[in-house]
């Protein structure tokens, strides 16, 4: 195979790794934000829950920043088209996300009840909204988005904001939110005791059941859905633009990759296994195990979406021939090569020192520590 095509596939896989990293690491913090008001009934209980992720949320959030940066660097045309096309959604995502750092940092700096209550709501919004948008964005990839390119690849988006809130996208958004709540709940179980632990356990069980149901419905839904098929165009690994190909729509085409390579059915199976075993582990109070199983579930879910769509990244519903694929939207060979190099060195390094940070801060968060520590959230 061509080196360039190999690099493109490598980056497609790396993007998957980064998106899974984002979903797991940012998703768990957002899950904690979402369930904060439920697992913590008093101010002190909420502070305990917040301080479980207190030392880590900032580092975790970088997975989000890196996800965005990696799309920009490796698939610039996707970054340009998706971010501008989904303008209103992106703004809502952004505004809810920028409330989060302040929610953590400012919430407990004043004793006022109204102040803290406001920030608790802000944390709920900034936990729930981004995860729903994250899932809904994936959902919209299956339908495609209405955009087209001019001769010099200026993209124009012709859809509306409400068009993005179609039923399948909402289902995907709910699945994403359910998984994030599951991860948030088991994270709270890891770090809390007593009543907070018990409430989190209930939520973990409910959310994993919900995720299983939603993921299954989603599977059946996609089976009957119109998918995109690349019928002609420059071969993989040749520098190209989205102006030189033909694409047709076909019922059930999103299952084509699974039919061609049945071994790929293992990917959704992994998703179901993660959720099911996660449910059991949370029930058995094995919350650390449940956390890892939740990560496996994310791997399965995002992997399933990626596998179904490949080689498409962002199909165009209004001009299918101009759909964006791994082959026509990636960076040049030189950029991809450099970026593989940087990722190969720094991703392991990041994982190593992140693990060390979690190791240093291991153990339960106690209410008396939180109330006595001036630096605590």
């Amino acid at each position, binding site marked *: 195979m061509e080196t360039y095509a190999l690099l493109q596939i490598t980056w497609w896989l790396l993007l998957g790794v980064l998106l899974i990293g984002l979903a797991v690491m940012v998703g768990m913090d957002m899950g904690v934000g979402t369930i904060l008001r439920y697992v913590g009934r008093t101010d002190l209980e909420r502070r305990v829950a917040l301080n479980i992720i207190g030392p880590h949320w900032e580092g975790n959030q970088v997975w989000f920043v890196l996800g965005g940066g990696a799309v920009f660097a490796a698939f610039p045309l996707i970054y340009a088209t998706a971010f501008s096309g989904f303008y209103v959604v992106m703004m809502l995502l952004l505004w809810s996300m920028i409330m989060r750092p302040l929610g953590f940092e400012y919430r407990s700096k004043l004793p006022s009840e109204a102040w803290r209550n406001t920030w608790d709501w802000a944390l709920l919004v900034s936990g729930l909204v981004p995860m729903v948008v994250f899932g809904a964005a994936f959902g919209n990839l299956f339908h495609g988005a209405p955009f087209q390119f001019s001769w010099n690849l200026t993209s124009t988006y012709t859809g509306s904001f409400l068009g993005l809130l179609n039923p399948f996208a909402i289902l995907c958004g709910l699945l994403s939110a359910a998984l994030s709540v599951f991860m948030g709940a088991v994270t709270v179980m890891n770090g809390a005791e007593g009543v907070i632990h018990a409430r989190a356990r209930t939520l973990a069980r409910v959310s994993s059941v919900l995720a299983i149901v939603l993921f299954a419905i989603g599977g059946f839904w996609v089976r009957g859905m119109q998918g995109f098929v690349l019928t002609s165009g420059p071969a993989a690994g040749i520098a190209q633009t989205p102006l030189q190909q033909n694409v047709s729509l076909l019922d059930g085409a999103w299952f084509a990759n699974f039919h061609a390579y049945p071994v790929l059915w293992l990917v959704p199976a992994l998703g179901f296994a993660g959720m099911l075993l996660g449910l059991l582990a949370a029930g058995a109070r094995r919350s650390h195990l449940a956390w890892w199983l939740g990560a496996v579930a994310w791997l399965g879910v995002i992997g399933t979406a990626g596998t179904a769509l490949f080689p498409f990244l962002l199909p165009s519903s209004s001009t299918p021939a101009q759909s964006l694929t791994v082959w026509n939207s990636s960076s040049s060979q030189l950029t991809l090569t450099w970026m593989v190099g940087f*990722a190969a060195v720094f991703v392991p390094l990041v994982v190593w020192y992140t693990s060390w940070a979690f190791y240093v801060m291991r153990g339960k968060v106690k209410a008396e520590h939180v109330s006595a*520590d*001036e630096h605590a959230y």
Partner: protein
Amino acid sequence: MHDINVVDLSRLQFALTALYHFLFVPLTLGLSFLLAAMETVYVTTGKPIYREITQFWSKLFLINFALGVATGLTMEFEFGTNWSFYSSFVGDIFGAPLAIEGLMAFFLEATFIGLMVFGWKRLKRGQHLAVTYMVAFGSNLSALWILIANSFMQTPTGASFNPVTMRMELSSLTELIFNHDAQAKFVHTSIAGYVTGAIFVAGVSAWYLLKRRHVELARRSFRMAVLFGVLATAGVITLGDALGFIGGQAQPTKLAAMEGLWKSEPAPMPFNLVAFPSQKDQVNRGQLQVPYALSLLVTHSMDGTVPGVDRLQQDAIARIRNGIPAVAALQSLSAAPGDAFALATFHAHEKDLGYGFLVQRYAADVTQATDAQIATAARDTIPQVAPIFWSFRVMVLMGLLMLAYFVLAVIYSMRNNIEHQRWFLKIAVWMIPVPFLACEMGWLVAELGRQPWTVYGMLPTWMSASTHGVGYMIFSLIGFVGLYTAFIVAEMYLMVRAIRIGPDQSHSGEGAGLLTDTSQAARLAGYAQEA
């Protein structure tokens, strides 16, 4: 086609959000290294007051840091949301430093900041010190990659246009990284952050000294801040000159705007100390000049010259005419990628492709562009002179003011009688806004001076924006203004409150109540020794 109102609103939104973000970044860059220096003294001397000092300033650091991180997210989004064509046109080059920034720098900074705040009790002294250094190093490394990306916009090196993919592509990562403009700009910006951190710490300490509160903490903080600041200010001025020297060669239109230079003149050229530039008539209404100074400042020699607006505009006309066939050929190539003649034409004219795009704003079919349209496009190549001219002068003036302030502050602090110079302490408090303002002015000079380009000489701003309607832009502008106003109010309130409360309740970072008695006792013992 692009709606020019949308382009202007996109520029306004980007400028507002970037200037806002840049209120918090410099303090992070500088205060992080000051914290590292303070903690170094704690670890090497073992005196508990230095731990208290470190913890107090880190509390203020965090209030600022949160907003810096939050508003930084906006910047990452906006390239895609509002500058869609820019992002696809140069994403192959521009995206890489942004991704590397996340991977190499932001992760470092953000992961270790959690340990810096929560790890006092769990880490050994040396380990915690290392963590603090990682935060400082990480945040400055972050700035490095962002400024490498920015410098590509100012002086595009290490890239070329690929007519097959219709975009610019990386040709050398090392050229991109070791871009002279990036080198000077990173050091200038990073050290400007040091100055900001120093003025902030010195100013707050001076306020405590005026109130005669926390005197031991304030004297030490003041001493360290002013030493840090005096060295940093000297560095900022040096690098400011280097940046002017490098940028003057690479971006002559920016230099002409900074210096209000309408007419080309023979060497040695005079420096416009004060002038009132008129963009319409392309003259200065009233000016005060220093003979010979401009040649010395920007070329470092008596016989060097730089071109004025008149010559630059003439050059632009020639380049636009040369760029028109490049755009036309590219258009043919888009329809028929195999067209050998079009490819040859393109390569013959490709160096002026960007100038061809410039006139496309007025003539959609560039081959039909009239002389008048070409002249208008050439006039566009000159950025708005008056705001650049004055932002630059205010920035330089503030730099010199801060140098004088720090020199005097060092004299008083080294004599160890700063507590008694009350007039000077008052000045120190009033100096706090100065570096913030200077940083904002620096951003304005750099980015207004880059106009009308997003990538200098390659991609005009008018083409770079996303193809939105005005409604979207008004929606997002209202959202940003509302949110950002609420944020700054909360931030200022918490900051002022934390300063008013002071360090008394902040010595519990090492694990709360159990520690207070012993640390207080140790502190009292320490003070007794000093007194």
